[in-house]
């Protein structure tokens, strides 16, 4: 009886170990994927920050859009 119980327990261990190892491998794979995507996102954020830095926006505005701040003369009084 004891040998039977021990055998069952040992088999359970091997089965469980197999399941857990598989699961951990799956997690590692996902971790690597997440890490790669995270790094890619960080890189894109950095690129975006650089491209939208005030200096670059100013250059783009000066060459393409030519927006300027609202001056006092631009505001028309109600009576005018």
């Amino acid at each position, binding site marked *: 009886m*004891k040998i039977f*119980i*021990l055998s069952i*327990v*040992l088999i*359970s*261990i091997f089965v*469980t*170990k197999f*399941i*857990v190892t598989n*699961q*951990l491998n799956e*997690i590692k794979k*996902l*971790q690597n994927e*997440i*890490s790669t995507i995270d*790094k890619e996102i*960080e*890189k894109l*954020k*950095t690129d975006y*920050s*650089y491209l939208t*830095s*005030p*200096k670059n926006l100013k250059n783009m505005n000066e060459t393409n859009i030519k927006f300027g*701040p609202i001056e*006092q003369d631009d505001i028309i009084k109600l009576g005018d």
Partner: protein
Amino acid sequence: MDESKKIFYENVIPSINNKTVNIKFKDSNDLILDEKKNAEINFAKKLNNFSFLIVTSFLLFIIFSLYKIYFDSNKKKNIYKKVTPIDRGKILDRNGEIIATNINTQDLYIDTRKVLDNYDLKKKLREIFPDKNNFFFDKIFDKKHYIRIKQHLTEKEINELRKIGDPAIQFHKSVKRIYLHHNLFSHLTGFKSSTITSKVEKNLNNLLEEGNDLNLSVDLRVQSIVHEELSKSLKKYDANSAVTIIVDVNNGEILSLVSLPDFDPNHPSNIKAFTENNLATEARYEMGSTLKIFNAALAFENNLDVENKNFKIHDGYQITSDKLIEDKHIKKDQINFEEIFTKSSNVGSIELIEEIGIKKQQNFLHKLGFDEKINLHGLNIVNNKLPDNWDDLASKFISYGYGISISPISLVSAYSSLVNGGFKIEPSIILNSTQSKTKILNEKTSNKVNNLLKKIVTSGTGKKAKVNGLEVGGKTGTSRKLEDGKYSEKKVITSFIGTFPINKPKYIAFVLFDEPSRNTEEFLENFGGNTAAPTFSRIVGKISPILNKNNYLKNY
């Protein structure tokens, strides 16, 4: 005796029995041994059962643990963070814009044992890296070894190298610290190279090394405007250096800090020594007239009856036997209390401090923290230099801004208390790190100071600090620099410290120029109003719409 019943043992033939029986004769000792044996057997059986239970429990525990790992790994979403190597934290501005971050790059290695064609590879490498000379490549290809040629390759260089297709060319992953806005935040972030670190990168290294992002209190948009305007003014006035600090007077958070000249932290090897000092925190100046407003605050705080008094300035003031202080820029014989500040009178300031007294002046400046070292996490701060012997003469010099050298950050900190209702604040460059405020002055004093600062801009020496659509207040300052033990006529420091909106001050902006080129015909006392004040006006005119909370970008 009956003879028949007598048995003659001689005639009895014992029956032959093949079966032999071992008869154990047990005595009392044997019985004791037997009992012991039975007890041992029973003990062994119990031990056996117990061991079985232990082993089974242990194995079941293993199964349980394995299942626990299985289920935990399903639940924990962020488990991977513990196993991936930690990148150095980013430095961000108050709105989450990236100031400094790490990027992955590649380094070039050459294994000279695997080179297919030495001559050809050397030639192609020289074309890709024109900054490296022939001697460099000759030395590398002289020996059989595996050696690094260049760190942090650009995408273009990597493409060119891949085109060569020589097996000797190897790439290794590498990480580089980059500063997206180049010079813009150089005096705050400092830099980090493989060998040296400085400023925030050095002083808050542990925090960043643990992978924590660091939010500075500065605003990228404000910093950019301040840097641009200050650079233009530095060029226009041909000054040696310039400083601007913008602080929230209610919590001490620094929204912008620019010190020129500055440097590009992306290229530490190109940094020149004279550009590395943050003049806002690591230099101290005799500020001149910007300090005069402290005399007014001192008079208001002590409820002295001087506000209706007139001060004679016509004859000047003989401060020492060989030094006469004059107010040549004021064409009046006597001035009232307000005019001491609106017209920036040195003689009036001395006469006022004579009325107030040395002790009160000393205590007041002590209360405002002039003799305390400011603790600005992440940056180095120089101590203020107060007179060793605070006597009558020193007190008079201090009254118009001489004999006391203070750092710009210290001046801004003390000024904040004058305009924010009387609360002492600790300046900070880290977002949301401010501590509790202490009330050190009466609100009435603060209101009166603000009124006076407003008058200086509307009708005094600070007229050029006016901003369209916004009421501001402030004080101009010009001081001569010490040269060979004497105060120079040509070399001066000009400054303007202003606050806005003046009806309920929220921000202080301080502008300083070191040695701007001066037209000697111009009155010295007007010089700050002609250089630092207009720069203040341009900066505040541009940043005030951004500083309005409603215009702030929400975090995205």
